[in-house]
């Protein structure tokens, strides 16, 4: 390996009650793409924050081109050529692309912003990241993927030599992800070193020259390019082998639990959607981001009521105008936007878990606190929510535990049909397996499950049957035997698959 551009030696960082980083080391060569992976809480974010000057290390040192550095602020790190791109986009979406790129470091002449310089310099940067938009375009008009590229252009405007990306693809479509890969490869070829943090191991395989794995704040191991395999990464991350046994396909009853006929959702008024889900069945709803899967779940659940068509649950035709109608009929939805739509973050586990059930458990409008406590306790034990008690505010829980609270809220109502939208997004490997086990246990109990996932492996592993959506329509259904990555991708991208059976 060439002389390291950046070296981390034995860095530790302590927070009250937790040792977030415990003597972590890593090296980064110019032009290298280093993937840093690990479960949530493994210390990835803390390490990146130290590198980017957001936080400071308690012990250990960081060397940039062999000389020790210590960044007191983000600005200092940036001046030394280290830029961090956060998982959440940090753009002012009411401003133009150019204004965002130079936000905080606007070129100026006699105290006024030099718009011409902004435009010229941003145009060059945009070209470098391969984004073909005018610097005057307002950011809110861009897709999340393109906004991500603006963030990268912004980092490049600082002459970054080390670019740290934290889960950059979590909101990108397939095409945008591909574009991002290209940009990263070009940057790497130009000598920019990239630290890439991701939960998506497929991406890591695709991009990384080397992988560093963190576990419990320590280095858990390293994989060279030719050692980067899915099972090897998972083993280092969780410290053991993880196997998901294939599930026996359930024997299905003749009558479907859910029957949807010619459903028209407001987002795609030109398409009619028809499909069925049986009791005890886990059906994956695959497709590219923006294919209309979330919109379909929202229409089923009454968030955006249908414009036409019929929804039948156990043979009963339903008129669903509001989530309450869907809930009363026996449906439940764990939404994709867990923090925005699934949970009241500032409320305790107990109140979140009981939010849907308090209506049922009331006595003359009064809350039944005993029932509420019992319900929260049941959710915590049954779903294995890691918390000292049910008074903990859900904002403080990890993503996996938050998702369990959402599930707990619905299981309290014993739903007949469970709709899950990206059930494991942003959740670490261990908790993912738990969510899978919960889904399977529910299916065994006879719950019909329809889940949306953008993770191919999840669809392949979990689905008894998969429906694939493309531009607002269901382009095909694949049963267990025909369920392969190629088949799903062909249907998702709009190519007709010979083995696709009608939905």
């Amino acid at each position, binding site marked *: 390996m060439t002389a390291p551009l950046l070296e981390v030696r034995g860095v530790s960082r302590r*927070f*009250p*009650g*937790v040792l*977030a980083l415990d003597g972590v080391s890593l090296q980064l060569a110019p032009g290298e793409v280093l993937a840093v992976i690990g479960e949530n809480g493994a210390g990835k974010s803390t390490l990146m924050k130290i590198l980017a000057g957001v936080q400071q290390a308690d012990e250990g040192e960081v060397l940039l081109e062999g000389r020790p550095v210590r960044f007191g602020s983000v600005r200092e790190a940036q001046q030394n050529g280290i830029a961090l791109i956060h998982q959440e986009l940090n753009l002012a979406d009411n401003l133009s692309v150019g204004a965002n790129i130079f936000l905080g470091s606007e070129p100026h002449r006699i105290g006024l912003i030099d718009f011409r310089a902004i435009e010229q310099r941003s145009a060059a940067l945009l070209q470098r990241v391969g984004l073909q938009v005018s610097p005057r375009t307002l950011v809110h008009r861009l897709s999340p993927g393109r906004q991500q590229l603006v963030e990268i252009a912004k980092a490049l405007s600082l002459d970054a030599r080390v670019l740290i990306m934290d889960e950059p693809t979590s909101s990108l479509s397939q095409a945008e992800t591909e574009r991002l890969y290209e940009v990263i490869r070009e940057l790497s070829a130009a000598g920019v070193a990239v630290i890439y943090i991701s939960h998506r191991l497929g991406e890591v395989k695709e991009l990384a020259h080397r992988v560093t794995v963190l576990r419990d704040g320590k280095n858990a191991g390293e994989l060279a390019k030719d050692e980067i395999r899915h099972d090897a990464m998972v083993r280092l991350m969780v410290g053991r082998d993880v196997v998901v046994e294939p599930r026996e396909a359930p024997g299905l009853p003749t009558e479907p639990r859910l029957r949807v006929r010619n459903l028209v959702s407001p987002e795609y008024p030109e398409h009619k959607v028809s499909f069925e889900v049986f009791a005890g069945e886990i059906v994956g709803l695959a497709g590219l981001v923006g294919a209309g899967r979330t919109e379909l779940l929202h229409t089923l*659940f009454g*968030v955006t009521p249908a414009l036409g068509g019929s929804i039948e649950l156990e043979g009963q035709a339903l008129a669903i105008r*509001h*989530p*309450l109608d*869907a*809930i*009363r009929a026996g449906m439940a*939805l764990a*939404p994709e936007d867990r923090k*925005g*739509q*699934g*949970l*009241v*973050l*500032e*409320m305790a586990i107990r*109140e979140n878990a009981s*939010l*849907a059930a*308090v*209506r049922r458990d*009331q006595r003359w*409008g*009064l*809350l039944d606190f005993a029932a509420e406590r019992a319900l929260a306790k049941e959710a915590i034990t049954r779903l294995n929510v890691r918390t000292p008690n049910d008074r903990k505010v859900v904002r*403080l829980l990890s993503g996996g535990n938050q998702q369990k609270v959402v599930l707990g*809220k619905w299981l309290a109502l014993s739903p007949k049909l469970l709709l899950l939208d990206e059930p494991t997004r942003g959740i670490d490997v261990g908790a993912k397996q738990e969510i899978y086990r919960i889904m399977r246990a529910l299916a065994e109990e006879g719950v019909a499950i329809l889940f949306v996932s953008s993770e191919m492996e999840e669809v392949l592993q979990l689905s008894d049957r998969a429906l694939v959506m493309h531009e607002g329509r269901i382009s095909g259904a694949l049963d267990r035997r025909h369920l392969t990555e190629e088949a799903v991708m062909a249907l998702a991208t709009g190519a007709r698959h010979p083995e696709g059976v009608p939905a």
Partner: protein
Amino acid sequence: MKKTLGILSLLIAICAFTAWQNPDFLNAYNLQNTIRWTALYGIISIGVSFVIITGGIDLSIGSVVGLVGATLALLLSVKGWSVPAALFACVGLSLAIGLAHGLLITKLRLQPFVVTLCGLLLYRGAARFITGDQSLGFGSNFEGLRAFATGSVPLFGGFNLPYPFLIMACIAIVAAVLLNLTVFGRYLLALGRNEEAARFSGIRTDNVIIAAYVFCSLLAGLGGILFALDVNSVQPAGFGEFYELYAIAAAVLGGCSLRGGEGSILGVIIGAAVMRVLYNAINILGIPTHLEFAVIGAVILAGVIADELVKRLIARRNAPA
């Protein structure tokens, strides 16, 4: 409970300081008056706290007080309506106003600030129009009705507990039960923090929000009736002016967050008491009355700053990482 300790200590501190500077503060007459007015302000403050908990605001309270007060005086003294009919009309008017606010805010998705700001102007104008901008009162009639606002229960040592305090206490108990022990209250707190998550959990958020605005206007209207009966002279241009701001200030002092989802009825009442005691202190301590607003504003600001600092201190001590 913990949340109200701060504001309670502020109240005690102001009372102690005032009593120390001027013992007249503690005489029965002064105390009774302060309690009476605390109760009247407390009633409208409880109303607005429900709206604030939804994350909304009601700027029209003062004008509703003015319009309902003027309507009551007009119907009883000029139009010669019977007492039950006039009260019924006033309550109906308040309900209609609250319902209109709620519908505009939920169904048309207008901003609460805008809707109730327009209400502030509209009801003030209406009050001046229906009365011909003339002051109205009850003279020496309707003594029985006026007793609800002016009467009191004799207690020990020449001290009388004003009726409005009892009315407020009943309302406060109902409000506290509603907020803390009912499904409605739970929904209110949940949607105040995250309306979308509440809707996704099957809560008919529109209905809950409408109910909060109706409750707020109803209590503003009740406040209007009691204020009118108490002062016995409703001057339509100024009666109730700025009361919305006192009510909002009391709610915020009492622990309501304008971001929604938080509030304590006891805190709000103590907040209303702080406002009234401050006002009283300015009068009896001989502070120039021109400074009245400045002093009240400064004390509220100091209280809010202290509250925020304490919150941060607690948060830092409880921080997980």
